[in-house]
């Protein structure tokens, strides 16, 4: 299907968020839509699927000018969007989710389960993704859920599918699988608009690329005509010198006491006999596929989950950590993987969020708050982290993804923890904000913090860590110093092909 967005403009309460943006999607092509958060990608897509209406400009489908009155019109025309936050109903089966809102009926008026099931199975066959159609969605992995969303789009005869950050919750291997399906779809002449922050993926799968910046159309061109540097420059409007900070010279860890030492940590079905140490001043990367048990391990160290067996020592002393409250008291901070769910109180102010974890730091012994000190602390953090906001009292939900993440980090820094666990700290945030967070992590390490970085992005693990441990199916399958690490070596350990001889702790 040929879809053209022409000179689309849109403003909200006087703010121009899209200025004469044009995008031309050709049949069977994968078209990457790139831009930092706030560049106008989402708004443009909302206009395309009829959720928002443009102030000016036209939409052409197969050269015919179309006006959407409701999202239904766009869907009937064959345009479907797979949302970043999956829009499935967990308690219903795959079949029901695929046919949500338009379940098939027999002539008698009863539901035609047989027909629906066979249609769903046919779709999964076509995209070569085996899945039990009668399972309920809550039993599925994120990758599988995503395919259910795509199947739903296909069952509606979508000829253009919009994917918004589809790989951000996926591990590398699942992402690879998704790329294969996308290729299959494009071979069947389905057009794809692919929104992502991960540029390496763009070069892997896209034919065309459209770049937006601050609501302005920058360019559309074949991917083969540009390189990474050009794209990044177009996105951020400046040359991105170095994405990662320089590593500073480290004191050898063995000469010092470990800041945090984990010995024999075990939790059934999650991780098994995990041993490692992290030292003040270093960044320890924990790599692995989603489901390797990294988040579970991080949360167990932080006291969200209890260890079945094993011991945690902090600065040489055995620490009994059976709740996050205890972890914070021992000086451990966790910046959790899902900031909306575990990190922020979205409808409370930025100021509230920055101080919510401080317990009695800014309070008298009997729990009386010292609000002057709280405000001082908020201001310091906002300056230090360069959080962009209108006022301290602004709701956290109103900030961009990158700034929300900075607030989540600030909240933890405000507890004066010296052992910081970052679980997927750059998920779903734009290139510029990622870079700021990388430099912040390095700065914290240089100031003496011990940092654990859990990430599914290999590039980030390689670029930032001093030392890397790799987990696979709940076990540590390797440890490697950054200087010797390559993507291939880590992937081998992550899928369990290569078992390091040193299984576990080395220092």
């Amino acid at each position: 299907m040929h879809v053209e967005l022409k000179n689309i403009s849109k403003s909200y309460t006087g703010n121009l968020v899209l200025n004469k943006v044009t995008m031309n999607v050709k049949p069977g092509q994968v078209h990457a839509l790139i831009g930092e958060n706030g560049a106008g990608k989402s708004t443009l897509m909302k206009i395309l699927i009829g959720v928002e209406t443009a102030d000016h400009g036209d939409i052409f489908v197969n050269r015919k000018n179309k006006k959407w009155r409701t999202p239904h019109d766009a869907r009937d025309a064959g345009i479907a969007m797979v949302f970043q936050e999956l829009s499935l109903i967990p308690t219903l089966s795959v079949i029901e989710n695929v046919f949500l809102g338009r379940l098939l009926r027999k002539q008698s008026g009863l539901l035609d389960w047989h027909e629906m099931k066979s249609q769903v199975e046919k779709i999964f066959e076509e995209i070569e993704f085996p899945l039990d159609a009668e399972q309920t969605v809550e039993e599925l992995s994120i990758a599988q859920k995503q395919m259910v969303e795509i199947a739903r789009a296909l069952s509606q005869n979508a000829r253009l599918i919009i994917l918004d950050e589809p790989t951000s919750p996926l591990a590398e291997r699942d992402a690879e699988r998704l790329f294969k399906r996308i290729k299959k779809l494009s071979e069947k002449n389905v057009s794809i608009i692919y929104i992502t922050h991960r540029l390496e993926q763009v070069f892997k799968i896209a034919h065309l690329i459209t770049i937006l910046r601050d609501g302005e159309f920058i360019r559309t061109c074949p991917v083969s005509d540009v390189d990474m540097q050009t794209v990044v420059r177009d996105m951020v409007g400046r040359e991105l010198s170095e994405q990662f900070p320089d590593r500073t010279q480290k004191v050898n860890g063995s000469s010092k006491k470990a800041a945090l030492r984990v010995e024999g940590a075990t939790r059934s079905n999650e991780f098994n006999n995990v041993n490692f140490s992290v030292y003040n001043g270093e960044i320890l990367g924990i790599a692995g596929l989603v489901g390797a048990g990294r988040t579970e391990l991080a949360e167990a160290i932080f006291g969200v989950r209890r260890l079945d067996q094993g011991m945690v020592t902090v600065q040489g002393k055995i620490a009994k950590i059976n709740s996050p409250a205890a972890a914070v008291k021992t000086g451990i901070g966790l910046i959790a993987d899902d900031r909306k769910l575990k990190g922020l109180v979205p409808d409370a102010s930025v100021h509230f969020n920055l101080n919510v974890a401080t317990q009695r730091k800014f309070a008298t012994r009997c729990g009386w708050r010292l609000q002057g000190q709280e405000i001082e602390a908020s201001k310091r953090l906002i300056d230090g982290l360069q959080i962009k906001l209108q006022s301290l009292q602004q709701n956290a939900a109103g900030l961009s993804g990158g700034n929300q993440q900075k607030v989540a980090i600030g909240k933890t820094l405000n507890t004066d923890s010296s052992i910081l666990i970052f679980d997927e700290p750059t998920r779903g945030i734009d290139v510029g904000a990622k870079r700021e967070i990388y430099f912040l992590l390095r700065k914290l390490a240089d100031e003496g913090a011990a940092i654990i970085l859990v990430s599914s992005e290999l590039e980030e693990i390689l670029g930032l860590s001093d030392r890397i441990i790799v987990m696979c199916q709940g076990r540590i399958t390797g440890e490697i110093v950054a200087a010797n690490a390559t993507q291939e070596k880590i992937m081998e350990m992550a899928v369990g092909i290569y078992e390091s001889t040193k299984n576990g702790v080395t220092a």
Partner: protein
Amino acid sequence: MKWLRQLGPLLALIVMIVLLSISSPYFFTVDNLLNIFRQSSVNALLALGQLLVIITAGIDLSVGSILGLCAVAVALSLKAGWSIIVSIFICLLVGAFVGWLNGAMLTKMKLPHPFISTLATMNVARGLALIISGGFPISDLPASYRIWGASSVSIIPVPVIIVVVVYFIFHIFLTKTISGRDIYAIGGNKVAAYYSGIPTDRRLVVVYMLSGLLAGLAAIILTGRMNSGFPLAGMGAELDSIAAVIIGGASFFGGVGTVWGTLVGALLMGVLRNGLNLLDVSAYWQTVVIGAVIVWAVYMDVLRQRVMKKKRS
């Protein structure tokens, strides 16, 4: 825009007072206004406990029954010849204990929603009130006890003084202490609060205990005023308290709400009832009007949020 949430109910209260003052010569007199305040005091105390619970995104259906049980408990203790201090202590203890049960069922037994645990205690507490009283009101309480509900300091009724003092204390608690802030955090996002190191379970237990305790305090005022411990006291009062909290601008989904908003909510309901009485509107119609006010108050909030959302995006 945040102050609008506070101002909405206050404006409604003022408009209501102005309208009623115009329509009835008896309305805007010191006596009548103090009378409204006194009549609202029981609901105001229940609503204060309910507010804490609703800020944590919970609900307490048991406050009316706790009120009934406490009323019977305090009357029986007095009848048994125990001193007023001891009887009041027992009354508050019973309230706090049932509240603790609510909290424990939620956090220790992990019942899925406070609607369920408090629905259970609502039934249990009412049943116990009927059992221990034999189903009859326990009347003729000592005169020195009745000052809590019936007497005045110069012209100001004692229940009004109690309400103002207690509201002030809870205002301080919610805005100036760590525990108060934690309660807002739990309602705003319980998971994030837990990950922030807030002892969420302990705070929740305290919140339900305070709700029960305030119901006990309300029972003291009510028994004092009625000169009787009535086992069916507070039937349906839980719904009035929820209405006051919601009219007062708290969010039913937690994280938002103020003490003063709730006081305005409770007074608004009192003013309505009193005003409609003065205007000879049947009691049956009063509940219809209160229902309409709930819709209106919450709809105002929906509109407010819509405007804010537009501004944000």
